[in-house]
């Protein structure tokens, strides 16, 4: 029998490549023989741009790295800069606000993942249900920061704006309600035989492969590797919160699906704890060499001049290099900042989770069907800006 290999070009415009991923797939019938991802269609040169900006002015750029979890990215960057500057303490209220926003972002990102992952496998309705809940989080951000996707409110030394009155209670209400709303998705997907058939046994990863490919986030935890940076290298005082790190057993798509659902519940848990402990007080440190003075005091010359200098010239960071990683929704997000003592970072490397996690797809897709390839793109949970930067 003569066999013929079909070379299929999936993307960059394709409904389920989550943006502009291009996969060069070789098919034998419908079985994937080889799969070579071609990335870079959204490479915007963020690292190069950051080298030419002051530390503060880079914050909006970092938010656009992973646009589904903008605040989580700027949080990682701000924490890295703070560590570079040697700021170890920020006001308690700012710390809790950061935790709440980071966890809300995680929920928003996972909801969007659920929406697209379900849609990729043909289930239309979860998309709408999940996005309905995501809209509520977007509302919180809009109330707090005036912007939906990218609040852009984290600053070195604190947060730029306090929560408006009543927002905490709204967030608390949402965190209490979401686990109940998530039953809708569970009824639609979790026990649905078609869903189980599509996801069980697809994209199985062992612990050794996870280490070999440097995977992180739900991709690593799905295979039972207990690696959550909130636990193993706590930042923002995550060690004082009670939460469970869900671990998978089989390392397949279904396990990772369950893990992400459970992570949303745990995030709700953390939010509830953080809202309960949220103290009153300052939201920014008072070192006006690096941190912005309060906006209402800027009319006063004493505050105006440092504010002006900070905006125009930025601050000088000590010479040195720092690597700081946080647990972004998609995995380990690391910022490696090299400083030469000037106002600009000498080099910033963003170690994004999607970039590393995507690499494994050519291994997972080999020998599977074309439909599985789509499921795999979904389970890796990539965002192309996160891959290409």
């Amino acid at each position, binding site marked *: 029998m003569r066999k013929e290999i079909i070379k299929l070009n999936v993307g960059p415009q394709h409904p389920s490549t989550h943006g502009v991923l291009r996969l060069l797939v070789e098919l034998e019938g419908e079985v994937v023989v080889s799969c070579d991802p071609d990335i*870079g269609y959204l490479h915007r*040169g963020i690292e*190069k741009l950051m080298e030419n900006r002051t530390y503060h002015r880079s914050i909006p750029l970092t938010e656009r790295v992973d646009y589904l979890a903008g605040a989580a990215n700027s949080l990682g960057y701000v924490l890295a800069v703070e560590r*570079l500057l040697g700021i170890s303490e920020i006001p308690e209220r700012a710390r809790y606000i950061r935790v709440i926003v980071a966890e809300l972002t995680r929920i928003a990102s996972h909801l969007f993942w659920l929406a697209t992952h379900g849609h990729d496998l043909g289930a239309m309705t979860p998309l709408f249900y999940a996005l309905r809940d995501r809209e509520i989080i977007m509302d919180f951000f809009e109330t707090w920061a005036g912007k939906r996707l990218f609040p852009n409110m984290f600053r070195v030394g604190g947060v730029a704006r306090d929560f408006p009155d009543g927002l905490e209670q709204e967030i608390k209400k949402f965190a209490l309600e979401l686990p109940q709303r998530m039953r809708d998705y569970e009824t639609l997907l979790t026990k649905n035989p078609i869903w189980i058939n599509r996801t069980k046994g697809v994209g199985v990863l062992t612990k050794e492969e996870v280490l070999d490919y440097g995977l992180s986030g739900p991709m690593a935890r799905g295979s039972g590797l207990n690696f959550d940076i909130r636990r193993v290298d706590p930042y923002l005082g995550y060690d004082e919160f009670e939460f469970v790190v869900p671990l998978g057993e089989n390392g397949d798509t279904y396990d990772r699906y369950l893990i992400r659902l459970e992570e949303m519940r745990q995030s709700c848990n953390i939010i509830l704890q953080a809202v309960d402990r949220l103290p009153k007080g300052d939201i920014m440190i008072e070192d006006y060499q690096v941190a912005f003075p309060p906006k209402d005091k800027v009319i006063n010359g004493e505050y105006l001049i440092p504010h002006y200098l900070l905006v125009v010239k930025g601050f000088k960071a000590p010479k040195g*290099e720092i690597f700081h990683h946080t647990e972004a929704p998609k995995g*380990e997000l690391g910022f490696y900042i090299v400083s030469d003592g000037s106002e600009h970072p000498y*080099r910033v490397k963003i*170690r994004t989770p999607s970039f590393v996690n995507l*690499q494994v797809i050519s291994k997972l897709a080999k020998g599977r069907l074309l439909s599985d390839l789509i499921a795999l793109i979904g389970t890796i949970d990539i965002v192309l800006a996160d891959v290409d930067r």
Partner: protein
Amino acid sequence: MENLKDYIKGVIESLPPESLVSHVEFRDQVTLVVRQVSLLEVLKILKDDFGYKYLIDVTAVDRYEDDPRFEVVYHLWCHERNCLLRVKTWASQGEPPTIPSVVGLWNTANWHERECFDMFGIVFEGHPDLRRILLWEGFDGHPLRKDYPVEGR
């Protein structure tokens, strides 16, 4: 914290002395600066004997007008002890700068090294598939080098 420092001290002592140039500590993060010839050896010892099984990141820094010009930086993580280690070395002088590839140790280094090649033009010797990853074939120059303008040529 003290335990970790002792552990890292133990790591440094057990490495072959001629491989290590220096070690720097900054904000509780230790950087080992090693010679390029013994890079693979050091990384293998760290991976096999000290549990640094997770290669977080491979990247490069362009120290423009220095010689050798390119630093290559490896970030390692030990899952058992939850500690970070940074290993740094230089790519060889001349154009193109070269350095041995670590794909043999970690598969994850594959794309990291391709990205370094794409952005800095560092050739990783022994890499199975070294081609541009983010930019397209035929792109002129390597954008993250310091002598490359931000807005392109």
